[in-house]
């Protein structure tokens, strides 16, 4: 699978991983302070932020793996920076990335429009919720409360990651620095590459 990848695409994902790794860590700490007040539901409405790098990279590179790899790399870099969420971030990064990847795989990597990006955000939300259900022990919570958390996370995935990811990707395309990537080869930015 890696043979079809150019090195510049991998380094690009890594650098995006660094930028978003920092953003992610910032929001983890913000979320933590917030979560001390209102509990784990504090994270839910902003969960989409943690899925965004998958969608931006897939928007730009448009190859199988361009959603799961940057998310994983961002997680590895978060771990390298050192934090108290630690190594399990890599696991959750892989899970979230796979969720986003699933949406692109279902559409066979042919369509890259807002709808698919929102679907990818939802996919990441669903996958990460199943994982979080297990690791954080949501089973101990009231089902209606868990349902509320789930709804918030899905909405956040669709809006922040889906719409936000497309917005950032399009804005980057407008800067002209993305010549030489799949996104620039499709004129409208959302036709199939």
């Amino acid at each position, binding site marked *: 699978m890696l043979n079809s990848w150019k090195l510049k695409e991998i380094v690009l994902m890594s650098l995006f991983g660094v930028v978003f790794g920092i953003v992610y860590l910032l929001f983890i700490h913000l979320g933590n302070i917030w979560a001390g007040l209102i509990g784990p539901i504090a994270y839910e409405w902003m969960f989409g932020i943690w899925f965004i790098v998958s969608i931006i990279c897939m928007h730009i590179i448009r190859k199988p793996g361009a959603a799961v790899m940057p998310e994983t790399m961002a997680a590895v870099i978060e771990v390298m920076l050192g934090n*108290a969420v630690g190594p*399990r971030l890599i696991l959750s990064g892989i899970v979230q990335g796979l969720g986003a990847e699933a949406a692109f795989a279902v559409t066979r990597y042919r369509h890259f429009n807002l709808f698919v990006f929102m679907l990818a955000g939802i996919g990441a939300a669903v996958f990460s919720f199943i994982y979080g259900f297990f690791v954080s022990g949501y089973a101990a919570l009231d089902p209606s409360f868990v349902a509320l958390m789930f709804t918030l996370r899905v909405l956040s995935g669709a809006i922040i990651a889906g719409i936000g990811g497309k917005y950032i990707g399009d804005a980057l395309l407008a800067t002209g620095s993305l010549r030489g990537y799949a996104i620039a080869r499709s004129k409208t930015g959302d036709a199939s590459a």
Partner: protein
Amino acid sequence: MRNLLHDMNPAIKFVMVTVVMLGLAFFFNPWTPLLFFFGVICLQLFFSRMDWKIWSLFMLPFTLGAFGYLWTTIVFGAETEGTVIWSLFGFEVTDEQWAVALSLAFRVLAFSSLSLLFALTTDPVRFVMSLMQQLKLSPKIAYGVLVGYQFLPVLKDEFFQIQQAHRLRGAATEKYWWQRLLGIRRVIIPMLAGAVRKAERSAFAMEARGFTGEARTEFYRPVRAGRLDMVMSLVIVALFVGSCVFGVYLSG
């Protein structure tokens, strides 16, 4: 003795920490995570040169988070059986609910302490090297990640530069923290555009120097795995099994 955790193979340490964390997720009694939390602190006391000031600084936000878990589980818990032990503001808290709430809160603490055991004793570059050498991560990805990591200080400088440029031109008049948070989007796009260019340049440079990204067996700086890693892994597993057994015993 006090360098054992630092010398442990990073990839093996990573696998052990992750497996034990997933194992802990199966327990809903308060004693198992609590015992494990203290066990991890003991490990850090005996086998590492931990900077406890940094440790506390990192732990603080997660202690807050643990408190959030505690009261959320009490108020929104699924468990309603058992005898009522106390009530507050009309919420009746049963002993079972209290136990589960404590368990989830202690779980947060146990996870954080275990993460810090990893984070504060592991050299980031050696970690990626060891992922490549022991866990067969593709060199393309491993070196890609390392390039990104090395760019960290450059990106930091760039962040401040862009911010200052904005301020110089009067584009950013942010007074409150939430305005600054929204203002991130104005900084992030130039940052990412710069990142794209840097990625391209460094990828060309790597290829020009003969980097193909093929899997290899010989390394310039080998990271070894040996008997020490086996012993330390056994210690971690023993701690985990011990806290499981005693935790279930104490709460049963």
